[in-house]
């Protein structure tokens, strides 16, 4: 008797946990987000039933693994756009989030292969570790593409195409703009992105390419760990280390680190002394920073275009079409105080 009671209690407990977990979402401020979550959940269960009958039905089933939505606005906007755009287009999208962990991502790709998707989009957490995964997708006979971050060269033979920004190009453009503004003898410091993250390495490479042939000197490089507060701390230490006149600018991995750097520079009262160049920016607020002259230049990268173009491509791949180009780079114009109003970035 006691045991029965216990079993019932425990069953109720776990069930209630599942329900409260989901219900917790609907209680939150953001109704839109929950709607999306609920919608995808519904479609997931509908779909699981449908796929048993065979994938012959007209709607494409597209699987995607992202990197870490929720970590920063860019990835979150990308994720949200992906979900809402898929709904708009009537695409059945199965989107998984490995929270920035390469191995989890490999596991989730296994899950997607098992779900028999018609096309799989991979946003690699890391270009190299994704090689084995895209190879597995290829072996399973499912068309595969990468988005936002490309897979390493060894894996390119297993994918159909890449859609997203060119991180090296972004870094290079921003660096060239920096040379234009500061001259060829500038001394700069760098705040890089999360250690070991492919995008971070590529933007650093872009910086090096952009200043090639000039006398611009990178005095110091430290990681801001993709965290604004850490970036601020690093910048504060730089400002102590290099007195006024010893550095001309700081080159940051993204706009988030740039905000942190700005906080430190403003607190030290050295706005006129040290300029900020952000390799790439993905949030609308950054525009205001550029307008105010807080960020001297940055390559603007829209999460919405990025997501939409990736999904469009995936739909055509799922229909069996071959892509025209292998590298499909989205536009990433460099914004400065002068041109920011004329870039036509309103719909971001």
């Amino acid at each position: 008797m006691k045991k029965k009671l216990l079993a019932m209690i425990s069953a109720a407990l776990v069930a209630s946990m599942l329900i409260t977990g989901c219900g917790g979402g609907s209680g939150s401020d953001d109704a839109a987000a929950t709607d999306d979550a609920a919608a995808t959940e519904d479609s997931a269960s509908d779909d699981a039933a449908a796929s048993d009958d065979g994938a012959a039905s007209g709607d494409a089933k597209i699987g995607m693994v992202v990197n870490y939505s929720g970590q920063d606005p860019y990835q979150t906007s990308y994720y949200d756009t992906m979900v809402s755009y898929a709904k708009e287009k009537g695409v059945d999208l199965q989107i998984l989030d490995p929270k920035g962990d390469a191995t989890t991502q490999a596991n989730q790709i296994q899950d997607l292969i098992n779900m028999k998707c018609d096309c799989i989009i991979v946003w690699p957490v890391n270009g190299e570790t994704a090689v084995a995964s895209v190879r597995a997708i290829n072996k399973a006979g499912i068309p595969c593409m990468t988005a936002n971050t490309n897979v390493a060269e060894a894996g390119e033979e297993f994918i159909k195409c890449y859609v997203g920004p060119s991180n090296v190009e972004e870094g290079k453009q921003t660096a060239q703009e920096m040379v234009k503004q500061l001259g060829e003898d500038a001394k700069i410091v760098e705040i890089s992105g999360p250690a070991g993250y492919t995008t971070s390495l590529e933007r650093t490479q872009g910086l090096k390419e952009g200043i090639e042939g000039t006398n611009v000197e990178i005095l110091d490089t430290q990681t801001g760990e993709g965290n604004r507060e850490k970036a601020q701390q690093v910048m504060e230490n730089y400002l102590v280390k290099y007195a006024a006149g010893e550095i001309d600018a700081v080159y940051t991995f993204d706009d988030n680190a740039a905000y942190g750097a700005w906080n430190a520079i403003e607190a030290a009262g050295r706005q006129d002394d040290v300029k900020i160049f952000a390799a790439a920016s993905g949030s609308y607020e950054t525009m205001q920073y550029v307008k105010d002259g807080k960020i001297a230049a940055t390559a603007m990268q829209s999460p919405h275009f990025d997501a939409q173009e990736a999904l469009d491509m995936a739909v055509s791949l799922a229909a069996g079409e071959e892509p025209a180009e292998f590298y499909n780079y989205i536009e990433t114009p460099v914004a400065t105080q002068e041109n920011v109003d004329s870039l036509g970035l309103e719909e971001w």
Partner: protein
Amino acid sequence: MGKVKAFLSKHTIIPIWIVCFVLASIFVNGFLSVNNLFNVFNQNAMKGIMAIGMTFVIINSYFDMSTCTLVALSASLACGLEGSIGMIPGIIVALLVGCLVGCINGFLVAYAKINAFVVTLAMMLGCRGVGYIYHAEQSLIPNNTDMGWAFIDFGAGKVGPLSYISIIFIVMLLIAHYVLKYTTHGRNTYAVGGNENSAFNAGINTKLVTFINFVICGFTGALGGVLYAAFSGASTPTLGWPDMHMLVIAGVVLGGTKLTGGVGNIWYTLGGVMLLGVVDNIMNLLNVQTYVNTMITGLIMIGILYLDKVMMNKKTKKANLE
């Protein structure tokens, strides 16, 4: 019947598993298929291998945080050394480095008597730094040689539904079970973890036992790292960071092995690690949003622990009555 009851309330992980399994089978579409279940097992085999070593250390009443970055270090050695000394020697070096890290941990904890948390935390930073230096911040992949692809094929290869890695896991489980249950070292580990002073008084070389357990943990950590490298065909400096060790420890503890030491066995660990794996799998199948996923995972962890407690309490009450 009474025996079954007693058995279940002693090994609480079994009824918890049954509850989770039944609920998931009913409510989650696509969960209950042979394919999916083997998939879960295969996915978590590497974590399981690392948890085996951790079980020894935890039964010994310590825990090892350095596993977290040792994984990345050994993975990078296995991949990186392939070019210079070949795949097999590279793997051997990686495993030896794992043992070496275990030796340092064991020496500092057992002989220098420094707090295990501090030692392994420091080693975690140390391994991370050395891993990055070796990587030069880049990811490493085995060269496109036959051996390199063979290594990756091994990581992806399967016998029937079981991957090669899972088979290694099963073999390791059996060995670990044998060592814990039937060898002097295994019995000594329980004794030292239960009460170090009385173990010492009983003539056990407590320092040596602790030392060996840390070496075992270092070895399985490195083995896990090498297999991760094979599985993903590359090694990155960020592998395992920042919370691999916590997930491994959580797996061991959820299974029923006590952090205070002296209690536990290898099958608890198997149950605990796979339970976390099943929770992950369910979340993926439900396709819930990241935030919700994170939250439910957290709640389920606490929930499982609570169930364990409820059943344990019942057992102790009963014991008191008798």
